[in-house]
């Protein structure tokens, strides 16, 4: 069994511990020797996406020092994994273990489908689900074919969830439009960000989704904040929280 370093993004650690626990439980139940290196904090994305490389770079270097030793690194976030895989190169290329780290850091769904190759998922989730295909996981990790691309369709999240009994994954009018979170964009461009979010929620609602499911808690935090303010009935869940209740093989 490969050694797995569990990477729990800072905001998941602090605000959504249940998502971290669900990820940990899924991986342990699959028999992995999972370690959570406690000195980890953040991948540096908030600073890097604001253009503040000087503030982000030390975090990338820390990340390599902390996680470089594992065979695999797994995180319940598409965005943070994309940071490691696609945006560390200009700081870390040539550093020992960097290429290994970059190529072996996985988002949970792609890890389960592509590396662990889970084929059987035994569980129930008797709800109408709308998938929120967060952008970095979609277009930088290619967790699914984006709607702009004219290639054969696939969707790793749907592939996992669709095996659950009772689940109905609804069809959205705009299957992968951005929710408007965008990190600092959510406050820098507050008006447009919130309008984008409300439009997503409306699309999910129109399709009959009771639960909005995604692989990035940051986007879901934004949608959840809008849902609760508007006192709507929908709720948001991380895909790990659903898979945690099922048997994976």
């Amino acid at each position, binding site marked *: 069994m490969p050694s797995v370093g569990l990477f*729990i993004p*800072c905001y*998941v*650690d*602090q605000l*959504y*511990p249940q998502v*971290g*626990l669900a990820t*940990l439980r899924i991986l342990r139940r699959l028999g992995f020797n999972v370690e*959570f290196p*406690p000195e*980890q*904090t*953040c991948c*540096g994305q*908030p*600073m890097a*996406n*604001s*253009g*503040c*490389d000087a*503030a*982000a770079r*030390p*975090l990338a270097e*820390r990340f390599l020092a902390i996680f470089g030793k594992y065979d695999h690194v797994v995180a319940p976030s598409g965005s943070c994994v994309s940071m490691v895989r696609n945006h560390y190169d200009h700081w870390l290329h040539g550093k020992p273990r960097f290429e290994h780290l970059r190529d072996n850091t996985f988002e949970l769904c792609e890890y389960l489908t592509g590396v662990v190759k889970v084929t059987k998922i035994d569980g129930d989730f008797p709800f109408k689900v709308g998938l929120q295909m967060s*952008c970095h996981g*979609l*277009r930088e990790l290619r967790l699914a074919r984006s709607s*702009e*691309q*004219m*290639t054969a369709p696939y969707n790793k999240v749907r592939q996992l969830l669709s095996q659950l009994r009772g689940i109905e994954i609804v069809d959205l009018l705009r299957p*992968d*439009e*951005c929710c408007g*979170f*965008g990190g*600092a*964009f959510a*406050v*820098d*461009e*507050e*008006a*447009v960000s*919130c*309008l*984008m*979010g409300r*439009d997503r929620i409306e699309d999910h609602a129109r399709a009959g989704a009771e639960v909005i499911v995604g692989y990035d808690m940051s986007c879901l*935090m*934004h949608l*959840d*904040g*809008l849902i*609760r*303010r508007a006192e709507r009935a929908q709720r948001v869940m991380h895909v790990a929280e659903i898979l945690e209740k099922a048997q994976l093989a």
Partner: protein
Amino acid sequence: MTGHAEKAAAFAANESRTHWHDESLWFVRVKRDRQAASIPEWEALREAASAIKTHTLSRLADYLEEFERNATANGIHVHWARDAAEHNAIVHQILASHNVTRLVKSKSMLTEECHLNPYLEARGIEVTDTDLGERIVQLRKEPPSHIVLPAIHLKKEDIGELFHIELGTEKGASDPKYLTEAARGHLRSKFMEAQAGLTGVNFAVAETGGVVVCTNEGNADMGTSLPPLHIACMGMEKLIPRAEDLAVFLRLLARSGTGQPVTTYTSHFNGPLPGGEMHVVIVDNGRSRILGQPTFRSSLGCIRCGACMNTCPVYRRSGGYSYGYIVPGPIGSILAPQRDPEKYASLPFASSLCGSCTDVCPVKIDLHQQLLAFRKKLVDLKVVPLQKRLGMAGLGFVLSRPWLYRMSGSLLRAVMPVLPRGLVYGAWNRWGVQRELPAMPKESFRDLIGKELS
């Protein structure tokens, strides 16, 4: 100075109109998807288009010389302009030497970039934009709000009112067919009176020494086949090496931009009208500087299809004017700060970096990666607000120290739930204007993992 966010908020404040704007453009995106899906080799076409542009840019000077040679042999006068001022002076000089006082123009983003119209008007030349959308915004004394759909921000009632005043259409009439017919009559008289026609250039072909112009309305053809003088203005990145390359780009251009299989008219001008004159003005105006920047070089491959605007969830909800630059949307947010980093510092931040533009771009410009790269450039130039730079430096400081990070997190989670709501959702809290903050859990993941593993 107001940046994109303020102007976007003003636009989005009218929510029903914003939704109408969003839906109008999404409709075009859907048409694009349908057209793209009809071509099994779509992704290979994008790849080929990107490769042709990369190749052309790798030896742009050589191809420009080849173009000049062949164009001259076709009887075309070729001019070179380092910047907007020189471009405007050249165009004016050509018109003045032919005593032109009435010019008809078809769409050219380059002449918008150079502010040619006011330059010529100040020198006594009547300039009529003949693309319907361009004519509408010209009559309103506005710039276009989209590079392909110049009047996409206007409702038919707005245009009906404008035409009632300017063209004498019936008051209250807003039927697009009726208004288009009125414009046809009005503009046909302009074509009949014009002494010269000016067009943009969609593609210039080095091999043939000719230029290609694409329109749906036929305005470029009216403007270049009636008066004997044709001036075509091109940014020098419009060049492609061979005529066969046109197939690749024309298959992509209209499908990506408006969701049509091709524009109605694709006109190949390899010389003047019999007895007439044709001039091509090749313009740099900052393009050679972009060529020298590896990160941003591929933005010169842009074929101005507008697909990145149509797909951009921010553009659709903030409108073209919120960008304050002649080319809005994702591509404009890279081109504008090239011109003036301080003035356009907010544009690379006017994106959620969703990457839809990158996936839709027919020439595979990595638009969202360039937006991100520009953010870094603007921070290095110190034109990003100090508050943001200090905030991010502070955040980086905390996150580099696990003890400080843990302490700050615990403090936040302990304090937030006990603070009065009025304080939590005070004016400082931009997140909370329309959104609830997440519920604060008592324990973090790292607090809980010990229990979990024991």
